[in-house]
């Protein structure tokens, strides 16, 4: 799968409380959650995000609560990929399970600037900052995880009998 979009960049330790504040957790509707995505650190996110845009974060992206509403809100905002230096483990798991593309690549997360055009090939792990022309290589997922992702998430993988 190939994705391309404008980078929207944030810092280290972006927690699930700022990705989707708990005061909106009285719903689990993706479109409704997207309306409030990132608003506690970036009120403008909702207006500037375009379908296909790529979110870039620092270390420990998605730390905090286990709310799956966080990757759901990001995905429903139109974000096609999150690149970070590292991810908090529950967020990492949840993203795989719901089919939000994520990739851990410290070099790319460091070098890519806000507003740059970025493309990525998720099968090969090649990330390109098209604004600067720099290319980065990310670790591909282990085969077991690849199978969950290509099935379309954990629920689909279970339905297809890939894991039982």
């Amino acid at each position, binding site marked *: 799968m190939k994705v391309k979009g404008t980078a929207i960049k944030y810092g280290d*330790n972006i*927690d699930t*409380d*700022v990705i989707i*504040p*708990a*005061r909106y*957790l*009285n*719903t*689990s509707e993706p479109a409704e959650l997207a309306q409030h995505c990132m608003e*506690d*650190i970036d009120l403008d996110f909702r207006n500037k995000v375009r379908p296909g845009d790529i979110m870039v974060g620092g*270390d*420990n992206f998605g*730390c*905090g*609560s*286990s*709310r*799956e*509403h966080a*990757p*759901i809100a990001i995905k429903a905002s139109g974000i096609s990929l999150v690149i970070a230096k*590292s991810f*908090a*483990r*529950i967020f990492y*798991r*949840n993203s795989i*399970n*719901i089919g939000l593309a994520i990739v851990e690549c410290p070099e790319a997360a460091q070098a890519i600037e806000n507003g740059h055009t970025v493309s990525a090939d998720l099968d090969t792990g090649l990330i390109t900052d098209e604004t600067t022309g720099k290319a980065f290589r990310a670790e591909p997922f*282990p085969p*077991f*995880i690849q199978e969950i992702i290509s099935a379309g*998430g*954990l*629920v689909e993988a*279970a*339905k297809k009998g890939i*894991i*039982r």
Partner: protein
Amino acid sequence: MAMTASQKILAWHAGLDHVEPGQLVLCRLDRVLGNDITSPVAIREFRKMGVKEVFDKDKVTMVMDHFAPNKDIKAAAQCQTCRNFAGEQDLSGFYDVGRMGIEHALLPEQGLAVTGDLIIGADSHTCTYGALGAFSTGVGSTDMAFGMATGKAWFKVPSAIRFVLRGRMPKYVSGKDLILHIIGMIGVDGALYRSMEFTGDGVASLSIEDRLTVCNMAIEAGAKNGIFEADQVTLAYEKGRALHDPMVFRADPDAKYDEVYEIDLGSLRPTVAFPHLPENTRTIDQVGNVPIDQVVIGSCTNGLYKDIKEAADIIRGRKAAKNVRVIVIPATPSIYLRCVEEGLVKDFIQAGCIVSTPTCGPCLGGYMGVLAAGERAVSTTNRNFVGRMGHTASEVYLASPAVAAASAILGRIAGPEEVLS
């Protein structure tokens, strides 16, 4: 090759003799947990899987604790979704208002989390039960759905960091100070993807409550789980309450650890985490003058009887400072009842505090004590992220029940020694 305690529990539940760090394993689960926020999403995903029944109606537990008693109509609808599902599936462990407590206080108390168990919960603080020598970890709603349907979950076997505890904690220092000290030392991603294993001769002096608090906040260092090896203290606590016989897994003496830290418990001081990360710690001696507007004593981190009692012992016979709202939340109905019977509720009310029914409420800015812009709270909860307890321009300072109680009296962040001297 030698294994850590966490690796042994995963190997046992995967039906393997041995596992290696990094290995992906599919494990049998002893319990699958969800709350009123995460379960509705899990129920939706469960339906999509086309499965009719949960794998075991006695091993799926749902606790209505976050926004219950319902804070608004949407929250009521979420609880209703859970209630209907629990009725349809005949779940024995559905905890609604009247029976419910804060999930991670309730499960150990009711004997639903037992030494040697493998438990997943769609709540990040599920790591709490490591205090009993279980492997428990937080997951999302889709993992919960898969767990409800199959009784299984996939895990990447973690490597571990070992914390060797020596000596004994001084008076007015508790498990909260220990875990805040550790997070301050290793950072909020210091244990990312890994286990935190607590050992050493100092463990014997830690109460179950202290251990529960320590493991509860393992996630705040990014850990997959925190775990204490079960000992006499654990087995005495579980006697008469555990749902089945405990199974003790001990780390091999030559198990490999990524890092080893030695901590002298006797050197710990009351510790406070400043906004907006749990790693921003200072000892009480370095706090300075920080006036406060609110104090919260409760949560899955510090809402146990010992926590409430420690706070009551400081507050009794004194008055909460003018203009400070003090909210006390015993974590389960039985803790609440004990606080009533022993007169602690009276102590709090006479001091100008309020005592709430069990709920997560203010910890995550839900209700029962949400902060306005510019307000500051000292809280015994677990997170102090931007906007965690209300407005993005409010501040949360994490501390122990003793520090929270002393701060309530003095109207600024203060240690118990200052009030009691």
